[in-house]
């Protein structure tokens, strides 16, 4: 083996090994910390046992998967609306100057408000039922979609529009066949952000009052001093979030194959 090949091999092992090493270090720190301060942090074994108990003795008659699904269902229903309205609205204000002049400024004012800040108003208007939770998640997911989509629409290369004009394309053809495909990677970035911000917003919404959902598990564990339950919920949140982002990057490869 040449020196160069050897160095490449070492580097390959290093880049494969370093993430594993990092995770092991965190787990080790967790074990050591929980062993010395069991009252502050339950250890991995305690958390694992607590996880099993969520199936044998479900919380509010719903097991862990049921809670995860309750949260996921809220996020997905909000996302369906956010994708439909957020992408259309982003295309509208990105493409049409009049629409941008009318709605752009309103949107700029609303944009920096964190979705959680709307919770009191929404609870007052819609109660604490499913509608209110889905609506809060919708607000949290709508904003990044609009921003990314309209940015993508405006980032279209003028020369590609000229190509469409020279070939005699109508304004509608230029929008659907040139401008929107150009914006797709941006739109997809918006979708990715919307999923992760939807996932964080739903937990906040659930922590304020819900009988099902991972957020309600966190609150229940917190109120009952059951830190192992809190950690079970937190780890589930991380795992679901990881699965969602993996699925999305797979989907992106299918939808925007040129962008790899």
């Amino acid at each position, binding site marked *: 083996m040449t020196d160069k090949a050897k160095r490449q091999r070492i580097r390959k092992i290093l880049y494969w090994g370093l993430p594993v090493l990092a995770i092991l270090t965190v787990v080790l720190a967790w074990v050591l910390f929980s062993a010395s301060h069991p009252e502050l942090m339950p250890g991995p074994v305690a958390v694992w046992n607590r996880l099993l108990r969520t199936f044998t003795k479900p919380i509010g008659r719903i097991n862990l998967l049921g809670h995860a699904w309750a949260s996921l269902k809220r996020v997905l229903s909000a996302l369906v609306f956010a994708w439909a309205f957020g992408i259309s609205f982003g295309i509208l204000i990105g493409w049409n100057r009049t629409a941008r002049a009318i709605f752009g400024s309103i949107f700029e004012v609303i944009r920096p408000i964190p979705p959680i800040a709307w919770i009191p108003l929404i609870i007052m208007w819609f109660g604490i039922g499913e509608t209110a939770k889905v609506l809060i998640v919708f607000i949290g997911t709508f904003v990044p979609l609009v921003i990314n989509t309209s940015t993508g629409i405006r980032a279209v290369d003028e020369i590609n529009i*000229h*190509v469409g004009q*020279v*070939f005699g394309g109508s304004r509608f053809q230029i929008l659907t066949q040139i401008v929107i495909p150009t914006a797709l990677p941006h739109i997809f970035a918006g979708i990715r952000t919307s999923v992760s911000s939807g996932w964080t917003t739903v937990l906040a919404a659930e922590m304020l009052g819900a009988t099902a959902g991972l957020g309600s598990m966190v609150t229940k564990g917190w109120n009952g001093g059951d830190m192992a339950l809190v950690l079970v919920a937190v780890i589930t949140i991380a795992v679901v979030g990881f699965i969602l982002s993996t699925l999305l990057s797979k989907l992106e490869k299918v939808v925007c194959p040129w962008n790899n």
Partner: protein
Amino acid sequence: MSESINQAPVKVAVRNLTKKFGDLLVLDNMTFDIHRNEFVCVVGPTGCGKTTFLNCLTRIHEPTEGDLYIDGVPADPRKHNISFVFQEPSAMPWLNVQDNIAYGLRIKRLPQAEIDRRVNQILDLMGLQDSRRKYPGELSVSAAQRVIIGRSFAMQPDLLLMDEPYGQMDVKMRFYLEDEVIRLWRELKSTVVFITHNIEEAVYLAQRVIILSNKPANIKETLTIDLPHPRSVSDPRFIEYRNYITDKIKWW
């Protein structure tokens, strides 16, 4: 050197074409004809308005005065079949090679069988069969430019406009693509207007060279290059043409 009489019917008639941007006069009252199946090169000093001239022909800009007629009717990209090879890379990054070539044909809503036939023909001519499913981002600069040229030729345009299409290429690739464009022009019997600041390129390609003046651009002279293709750059008559045009541009 004089202009010879072309027997073919007039394909493109440009009449008193004038373009102003505000007070800035860029094109000044240009009038000329291009005949069917003719290969015309337009040369002129840098910044004289060559690109503006092409943009008026394609209606990216509306002329301030005068007009351009194709087969006797005012040019309109919706009615006429115009193609444009831009100076900058303009392949659609989200379409693979074959879809890029089919792009204009789909806008014109040609039948699918005809689209397939033409795309295959162009892939063969351009030597792109092996990369038909690749994206422009995966191609070399010259292959991506061949896609753009192919996309334009696939339209079998009434008028093919090329704006310094080889400006970014190295000499070897330029020679290769110059021969390629001649071959395509012959096989597909298109009418070509080719803009360049490279005089040698103009003499190598054109049946007729239109020499533009400095801004505001006007036609300084039209010159028929009476040499058979393929041409040799070392042919004394070639050199004579080249020097003649160089002098014309130098002493505007």
